[in-house]
């Protein structure tokens, strides 16, 4: 990790939270941020560990998961390019509220809390960028709460399919196992398999080995097809 090339200012400018920052601030941030690579499946940090950094996704996707005392895993969301996750430095959240795991080859920019503290002492307007980040996360968590609380299991599975689909193909493709879909939607594998069979019967998806092809995106929209799809997180 020591040989990782430094973070370049123009890479940072692609992160939405930093887009409005003056170029001097971008430069000083780039100076203290660290680039890290993770292999698919690698754990980035664990829920309950002391939290001390903000993480920004440069490449790949990161899965945010929570684990119950009984060991059950609940996927909360997937963070892709430009998204920010991790603790809330400055007013310590104390411990990481969830676990982060690389879903594929992932490159992250890490902003350690002590660097942030030093930068902030020199440049109080940096708080503005943080406000932007925290505000986005608040919206995201409100949405996750709604998904968990008010939707049926079928709604949650459908939502996962839409959220995690790769839209770069002619038809959207979800490359997740039923097991992973179950964890992400808060249920068990059997329920996912049954639900996907039903969707296939209705011509909404096509189940292939290791992937699900979405044939009718609109039919998967949950009861409250929310206006902010794709912009949350």
């Amino acid at each position: 990790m020591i040989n990782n090339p430094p973070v370049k200012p123009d890479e940072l400018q692609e992160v939405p939270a930093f887009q409005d920052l003056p170029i001097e601030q971008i430069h000083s941030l780039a100076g203290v941020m660290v680039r890290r690579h993770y292999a698919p499946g690698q754990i980035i940090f664990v829920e309950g560990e002391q939290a001390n950094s903000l993480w920004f996704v440069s490449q790949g996707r990161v899965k945010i998961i929570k684990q119950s005392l009984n060991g059950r895993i609940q996927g909360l969301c997937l963070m892709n390019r430009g998204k920010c996750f991790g603790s809330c430095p400055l007013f310590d959240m104390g411990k990481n509220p969830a676990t982060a795991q690389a879903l594929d080859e992932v490159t992250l920019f890490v902003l350690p809390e002590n660097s942030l503290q030093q930068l902030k002492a020199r440049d109080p307007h940096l708080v503005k960028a943080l406000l932007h980040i925290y505000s986005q996360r608040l919206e995201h968590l409100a949405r996750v709460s709604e998904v968990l609380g008010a939707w049926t299991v079928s709604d949650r599975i459908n939502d996962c399919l839409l959220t995690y689909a790769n839209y770069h193909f002619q038809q959207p493709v979800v490359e997740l196992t039923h097991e992973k879909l179950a964890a992400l939607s808060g249920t068990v594998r059997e329920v996912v398999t049954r639900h996907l069979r039903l969707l296939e019967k209705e011509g909404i998806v096509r189940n292939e080995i290791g992937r699900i092809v979405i044939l009718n995106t609109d039919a998967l929209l949950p009861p409250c097809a929310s206006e902010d799809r794709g912009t949350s997180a």
Partner: protein
Amino acid sequence: MRVYYSGGDTMVSAAFLSKIELFAALQPHTQQDIAAKAALVEHPADADLYRQGGPPSALYVLQSGRVKLYRQSKEKCQILALPGPGDCLGAESLPTGAPAPYSATTLTPVTALRLSPDDLQSLLDQHPDFQEAFLRLITVRLKQFVTLVHDLAFRDVTSRLATVLVVRAETEGQPHNEGIIFDRLLSQQEFADMVGTAREVVYRTFRRFEDEGLVKATRRSILIRDLDALRAIALQEVR
């Protein structure tokens, strides 16, 4: 809505602000600037303060009364929090300019200090100490939501309803010769919207708590007779 503007009015003075947690540690000149822009407003029960999907809202600091924050879709509703006196709400999406992430409706008549989005933005631009206080405020709400997400993911309805009752007993409860009592405020449906279930399930769970001698619920109030037993249920992670 009755609005008392602060211009020349002693109701919103810097001294008044210094007693509010959000503003207490701010520089005197920041407090003065806020006092000049803040208004003390009154709303009746069941009034919308702001709506999900609407423009970024004003910031409210509750002086009295209680509000529910919720996300609503076509048929379903999830209550996220029940801020009360001393709590702040609103302006969550001001930093990003995104639509308001949830709605706020008063459950009781409410008195609150209000800063309009424009005034709030100019105060944030001018006063780094206020910016930091506002960031702290958003962090507090973030922590609350992280807990809510955990509860919804891993606790069952019984445990979640117990959690709601324990938290309300701790924050709103008054001593009573049989335990702790607080105003009911929420309908059966609203309790269901808080714990993410159907009204019938809430009804059955209340019945169970009553049968076990933990709770006595009437239309107007809720009496907690065994807080420790409820706490134990609240902490169970069953999923």
